[in-house]
């Protein structure tokens, strides 16, 4: 079963239009939704959660239409937005009691385990927490009711590398179970590269690509050569390029360049930056 299926999703705000967006996230997988600020990542997340209404299209979450019974669907979803909107007066202990009343499957032992693991004091007020601690509490809340689908919207932005690494580790732990899946939006591509099976690029509301991470790495390569050498290649093979006094670095489609051409590996961040620039200048 697919954890998430988005079909022809569209949403317009004045001069911004998201979609038509088509995405499928199989169970047991992690998908990274990458895009610049304003690309439509948070809009997509809000549409999935039915916080905003789509102009067209449909969303199936764990086999159910999100327009039909989103309240029941959310019992199986763990969500963290870019800001954990808990009232500053509350302590983690109080948050636990509130969530125990909100979720049918709330597991206080799991929650308390996360509080201990993250060294979050149970009686300290949320407003006194650092951003890292706030995000950790948000993750503890998102993971303590045996969710099957995890949605993280910019969950690692503004965090130091150590905390970000902990978050990535948690996501990987979560998706070790076969029926678990995660959709993670971020513009910190390096974090996504560590834990994602699928990568989707959003640019100005349009989906540039959605593919398995390993297939992307197999398909694209980094060519370092002179300008003249690059001009000899099929124009459609070049996804994007960067020029310097020492030559050209170009990301090319391996299937469209002559066999035997020496290509280096390309990481997702480079691919994202180059594709974004290319689209931006198109």
């Amino acid at each position, binding site marked *: 079963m697919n954890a998430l299926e988005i079909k022809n999703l569209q949403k317009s705000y004045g001069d911004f239009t998201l979609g038509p967006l088509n995405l499928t996230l199989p169970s047991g997988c992690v998908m990274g939704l990458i895009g610049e600020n304003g690309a439509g990542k948070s809009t997509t997340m*809000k549409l999935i*959660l039915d*916080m*905003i*209404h789509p102009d067209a299209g449909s969303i199936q979450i764990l086999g159910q239409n999100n327009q039909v019974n989103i*309240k*029941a669907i*959310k*019992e199986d*979803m763990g*969500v*963290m*937005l870019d*800001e*954990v*909107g*808990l*009232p*500053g*007066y*509350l302590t983690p202990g*109080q948050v636990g*009691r*509130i*969530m*125990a*009343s*909100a*979720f*049918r499957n709330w597991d206080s032992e799991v929650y308390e385990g996360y509080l201990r693991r993250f060294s979050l004091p149970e009686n300290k007020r949320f407003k006194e927490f650092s951003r890292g601690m706030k995000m950790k509490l948000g993750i503890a809340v998102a993971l303590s009711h045996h969710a099957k689908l995890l*949605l993280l919207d910019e969950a690692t932005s503004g965090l130091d590398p150590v905390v970000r690494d902990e978050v990535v580790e948690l996501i990987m732990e979560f998706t070790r179970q076969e029926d678990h899946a995660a959709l993670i939006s971020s513009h910190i591509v390096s974090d996504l590269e560590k834990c994602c099976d699928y990568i989707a690029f959003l640019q100005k509301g349009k989906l540039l690509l959605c593919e398995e991470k390993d297939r992307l790495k197999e398909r694209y390569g980094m060519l370092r050569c002179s300008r003249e050498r690059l001009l000899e290649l099929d124009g459609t093979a070049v996804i994007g390029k960067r020029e310097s006094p020492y030559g050209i670095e170009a990301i090319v489609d391996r299937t469209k360049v002559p066999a035997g051409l020496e290509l280096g590996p390309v990481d997702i961040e480079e691919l994202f930056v180059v594709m974004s620039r290319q689209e931006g200048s198109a």
Partner: protein
Amino acid sequence: MKGLLVKDFYMMIGYCRSFLLVSVVFIGLFVVEPSNFFFLLMLCIMLGMLPTTLLSYDEREHWNVYSQVFPISKAQYVSAKYLIGLLCTILAAAVVATSCLVRFEAVSLIPLLCISLVCSLIPAALLLPLSFRFGTEKARYLYFVFMSLAAFVGAFLISGGDDAGGRSVLIPMMNWIVPLLSTGAVVLYGASWLLSITWYRRREV
């Protein structure tokens, strides 16, 4: 729903302590001198405003957005605030009744209870739909207009009497106007509840 009420309960304990102090002062003013009953009614108005105050805190701390990631419908979110409003109304009525009994003002009890109902239900009934539709920031403008009007009416009634702070003017009117207003306030509160649910469902936060 229960989770929302628990959360609002914690919020009231945390953020509304100054409210408790003001309440004690207002009750004390009435107990010492019953002509100060206007303060008691101000207390009812303040209690009626409490759901809007809680909503305002929700917006400031982005709980109104964050709560939507939990299995809580928009109707439940709205209803929690209206239930808090009802609890505040009961509390207001209890305060009025206790204050009257302490002063042996049993004759004024029923009319004052009716007025307390009006004073606590109508502000919430007017402000909550606007807050759910436009946000508490914009609805606050209406709050100031309402409070100014309430103060104006209160001052007029008090200055209009020739004894005991205008009670001679008020008491005869209470026989028919106040029960009518009380019934109207209850109906308005119910209609406001439904309107808030409809408006908040349409709103994208």
